[in-house]
C-alpha cells in the first residue's frame, strides 16, 4: 500500500503541475463554457415557447447549443483527455531509466501501474466534476434554473458513467505505453484508435448493414430487410465506445427517453405507447434501459486495465 500511495501522490502531483494538464483543462473549460452558454441561451428561448417540461435543468446538458451538447462534447473530448493523460505513463519512465529504479524499490510491481491508473482516474474525476459544477452555475445564472433532487441524482450518475468512459481511454493509453517502447508510437497509436472508433466504425456499420441487407430507394423493400438493416447498423456501431457512451448517457440525461432503439426497431405497440404516453421515467427505470450499455462500458474498462496489468507484470524490465 505504501508504494501505491507514493506512486499515486507523485503522479497526481505531476498531472496537476504539468503544462499538458493546464492546457488541456483550459481548452476543455473554454469549450464547455461556450457550449453551456449557447445551450443556456437556446434553452431560455425554448422554455418560453415550450409547454411545461418536468426537468428543464437537465436540458442544459442535452441541448445542442451552437455545435454540440455537453453530452456529445464529453463523448468526443473525453477520449482525448484520457489518452493525453496516459499515453506516455510507462514508456517515459522506461526511456528515462527511472522504471528500473522504481521497481527495485521495496514495493510490489503492480503498485506502479495501479498508482498511475488511479492518479489518472482521480485527475479526470476532478476535471469532469468541475466542468459539471461550472455548467450548473451557468444554469443558475443565465436561465435561472434550480436543479431538483432527481436532476442532481441523474447528473451524479452521468458523472460516474463519464468517469468510467474516460478511464477506459486511460487504461487503453497505458496499455499502449507498455506495449510501445517509443512515446511517439504510442501517441500515434492511441490517436489512430480514437479516430478509428469515432469515424470509421459508424461509417463501417452503415456500409456493412447495406451490404448484408440492401435497401433500395426505388423498389419496395420488405419490412424484414429494413429491420435487419437497422439492427446490423446498431449492433456494429456499438463496437465504438463513443456510441456506447452516447446512448447510455442520453437515457440518463433525458428522462423522456425510454429506449435506446431507433424508431424502425420498435414494435407497433411500443411505437403507440411512446407517442401517446409522454411521461418521464424514474431514474431506476432509466438505468434499466441502458443497463447493458453500462455493463459493457465498465467491462471494457476493466478488461483493458487487466490486460495492461498482466502485460506489465510479465514484462522483463531492464532499463
Amino acid at each position: 500500500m505504501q508504494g501505491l500511495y507514493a506512486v499515486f501522490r507523485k503522479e497526481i502531483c505531476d498531472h496537476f503541475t504539468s503544462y499538458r494538464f493546464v492546457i488541456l483543462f483550459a481548452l476543455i473549460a473554454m469549450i464547455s463554457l461556450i457550449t453551456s452558454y449557447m445551450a443556456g441561451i437556446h434553452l431560455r428561448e425554448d422554455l418560453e415557447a415550450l409547454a411545461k417540461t418536468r426537468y428543464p435543468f437537465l436540458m442544459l446538458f442535452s441541448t445542442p447549443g451552437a455545435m454540440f451538447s455537453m453530452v456529445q462534447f464529453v463523448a468526443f473530448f473525453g477520449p482525448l483527455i484520457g489518452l493525453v493523460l496516459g499515453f506516455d505513463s510507462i514508456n517515459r519512465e522506461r526511456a528515462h531509466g527511472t522504471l528500473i529504479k522504481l521497481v527495485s524499490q521495496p514495493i510490489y510491481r503492480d503498485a506502479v501501474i495501479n498508482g498511475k491508473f488511479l492518479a489518472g482516474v482521480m485527475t479526470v474525476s476532478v476535471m469532469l466534476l468541475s466542468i459539471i459544477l461550472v455548467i450548473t452555475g451557468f444554469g443558475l445564472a443565465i436561465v435561472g434554473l434550480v436543479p431538483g433532487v432527481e436532476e442532481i441524482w441523474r447528473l451524479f450518475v452521468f458523472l460516474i458513467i463519464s468517469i468510467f468512459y474516460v478511464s477506459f481511454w486511460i487504461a487503453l493509453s497505458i496499455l499502449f505505453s507498455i506495449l510501445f517502447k517509443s512515446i511517439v508510437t504510442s501517441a500515434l497509436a492511441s490517436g489512430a484508435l480514437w479516430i478509428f472508433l469515432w469515424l470509421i466504425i459508424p461509417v463501417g456499420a452503415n456500409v456493412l448493414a447495406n451490404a448484408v441487407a440492401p435497401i433500395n430507394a426505388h423498389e419496395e423493400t420488405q419490412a424484414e430487410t429494413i429491420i435487419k438493416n437497422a439492427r446490423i447498423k446498431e449492433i456494429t456501431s456499438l463496437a465504438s465506445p463513443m456510441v456506447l457512451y452516447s446512448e447510455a448517457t442520453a437515457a440518463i440525461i433525458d428522462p423522456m427517453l425510454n429506449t435506446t432503439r431507433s424508431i424502425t426497431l420498435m414494435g407497433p405497440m411500443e411505437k403507440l405507447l411512446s407517442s401517446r404516453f409522454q411521461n418521464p421515467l424514474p431514474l431506476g427505470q432509466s438505468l434499466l434501459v441502458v443497463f447493458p450499455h453500462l455493463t459493457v462500458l465498465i467491462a471494457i474498462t476493466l478488461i483493458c486495465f487487466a490486460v495492461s496489468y498482466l502485460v506489465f507484470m510479465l514484462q522483463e524490465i531492464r532499463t
Partner: protein
Amino acid sequence: MDTPTVIETKDLSKEYDHQVAVDHLTFSIREGEIFGFLGPNGAGKTTTLLMLLGLTRPSKGSALVCGLDPMRKAKEVKRRVGYLPENVGFYGDLDAVESLEYVASLNGIRGTEARGKIEELLELVGLSEDARKKVGAFSRGMKQRLGIAEVLLKDPEVLFLDEPTLGLDPEGAVRLIDLISQLNQERNISVLLSSHHLHQVQKISHRVGIMITGKMVAMGSIESLAKEKLGLGGREYSLEEIYMKYFPEV
C-alpha cells in the same frame, strides 16, 4: 567459515530464446566484503544482478540474498538490497531533495525521519550545496552520487552497483570509489561492484570475479589470481594484467 554469506548462488542460469546469458553461476559473497564483478560488456553481469533482485526469473538454479529467495521474497530482498542500475535515470524536473523524498516515500520513510536522513545523505555524498538544484541540470558525477544517496536511504545491507563509474571523469571516478570504500568500512555494507575501471576496483576490492559469456572463469582475491595466472614472485602486478590473461592473445 566464520563470516556469514550475504549472497549465495547455485547453478544460477538464464536463457533468452536459446541464448545463454548466464551459465550455471555458482558463487558467494561474504558479509562486509567488496566483490569486484568484472567482465566484458554483455557477459551477463546485469542479468545476474537482476536475478539476485528478483526482477528476472532464473531459468535454472537458485540464489539466496540475505538468506532469502529473491523470487519468492522479492519485496524483502529489495528492502535489504540497494541497486544502482547502469545509467540510472532521474526525474529531471525534481530537485535533489524532491528526488530523495520520492524514493524515501517508496521505502515507507516519511516526515522528519525522511528529512533528517536526506540531509545526512546529501552531506555524505557531497551534494548539500546542490540540494535545491534541478536534477536535470546535474553533471554525470553528481547524478551518480545522488543515485548512491537514493540507494542508501533504505539502510541497505548489500549494495549492487552496476558500472557506477561509467562515463565519469578520473577525479569523479576516484571520489566515487572512495565513497564506496568509506561506506563499506563505516557502515559494514557488502558491495557487489561491477566496473571497467580495473585500477579502481583493485584498490578497494577484497575479492574479484571475472565473468565471460555467462561463466565465472575466475574468482578469488587478487593476490591468489596473480599467483595462479602470472606465477609471480614478488614483482608488481596490476589487475589489468591478470584480467587480460583470460582473453586469448589478440
